[in-house]
């Protein structure tokens, strides 16, 4: 296993894709990198569930782009990555998997038998309850379960084609609705803000000064503006500024200078807040 995070890119017809992470260990790595993401997985039997969600973790496009750009992650996409992984399976691998499964069955059998004996003992019943050994073993076998893992053990071991990775990155980058947002994202990451999607407060990002479990967010960051061409929409200043005051957040606008050489000077931020009079 590599320490790079596998990002599954689920691609539709007209856009770059939705970035998902399925491996729980990968999710921990991301958290340590300052990326919280949004857990999006429900139980198949409770698809309306909207709290206590599980894997996969859904990432914003900017997050996926940033991770791959800095070499902390790679994309997995399309049926071809699954077929090529399946083709690479050797009889040895099959045997190993079979053995692992048998081992898990053996552990489960032993555990269940012990549990059964313990239960009978507590009820004060004789340990031989009169059932035939065949019935017993049939009951036991039907109670064994096979775990379906959330993430593939095979796909992440496949070598990555750098040209294809580059292509996927570019597709995802080009699919961004507002090209400047990625620069804004990078500038805020450089200052160690945790970012999450901002639609709840009417912005592009919500910025937290640290892990969202420990800190309240301070800012609603608006979609990127062009530094010298886009003008400030004053009606939005009024509505955003009032809403921001209500939820104790500054309303942040960011101007992107695409031609700036130094990335740290590429984005200019301004924080706006209702002055509490007038």
């Amino acid at each position: 296993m590599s320490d790079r995070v596998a990002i599954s890119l689920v691609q539709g017809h007209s856009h770059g894709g939705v970035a998902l992470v399925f491996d729980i260990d990968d999710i921990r790595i991301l958290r340590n990198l300052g990326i919280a993401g949004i857990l999006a997985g429900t139980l198949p039997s409770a698809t309306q569930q909207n709290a206590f969600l599980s894997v996969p973790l859904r990432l914003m496009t900017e997050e996926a782009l940033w991770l791959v750009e800095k070499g902390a992650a790679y994309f997995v996409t399309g049926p071809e990555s699954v077929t090529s992984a399946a083709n690479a399976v050797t009889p040895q691998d099959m045997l190993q998997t079979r053995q692992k499964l048998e081992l898990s069955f053996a552990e489960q059998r032993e555990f269940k038998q012990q549990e059964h004996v313990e239960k009978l003992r507590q009820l004060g019943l004789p340990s031989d309850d009169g059932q035939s050994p065949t019935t017993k073993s049939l009951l036991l076998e039907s109670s064994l379960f096979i775990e379906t893992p959330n993430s593939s053990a095979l796909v992440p071991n496949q070598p990555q084609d750098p040209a294809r990775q580059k292509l996927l990155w570019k597709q995802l980058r080009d699919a961004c609705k507002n090209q400047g947002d990625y620069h804004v994202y990078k500038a805020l990451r450089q200052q160690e803000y945790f970012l999450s999607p901002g639609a709840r407060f009417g912005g592009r990002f919500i910025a937290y000064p640290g892990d969202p479990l420990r800190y309240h967010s301070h800012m609603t960051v608006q979609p990127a503006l062009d530094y010298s061409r886009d003008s400030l929409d004053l009606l939005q200043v009024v509505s955003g500024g009032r809403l921001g005051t209500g939820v104790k957040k500054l309303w942040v606008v960011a101007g992107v200078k695409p031609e700036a050489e130094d990335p740290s000077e590429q984005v200019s931020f301004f924080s706006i807040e209702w002055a509490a009079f007038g």
Partner: protein
Amino acid sequence: MNNSSIVSLVKANLAQQQLWDFVEESQLNDLDAWVISGVPPHKLSNDDKDLEREWILPVDLKQYSASDLTLEIADKLFAELICRRIILGIANDDGTVVYYFMYKGLHKPKKN
């Protein structure tokens, strides 16, 4: 950006309605724009230590066309005025004025 048409409106609002003192207008060197300075009757934010002279930029809220305030202009404004914040005085076409703080860079929300 030319805001000369609403300078007197915002100035009168500050002096007569918001009861600010020492309200004066001045024209910027770098930009074709006017700013107003004055001292508020009380502290504007719990984070302020003392009353100080504030800078107000009158801007016109036009319903059907964009404003001409870009972030580049805002940067130039901060460069010329050398202050920690600028107050946008947004004038509506019915004569009302609303005021918004604008800080350069990322800033913390004010304490209540």
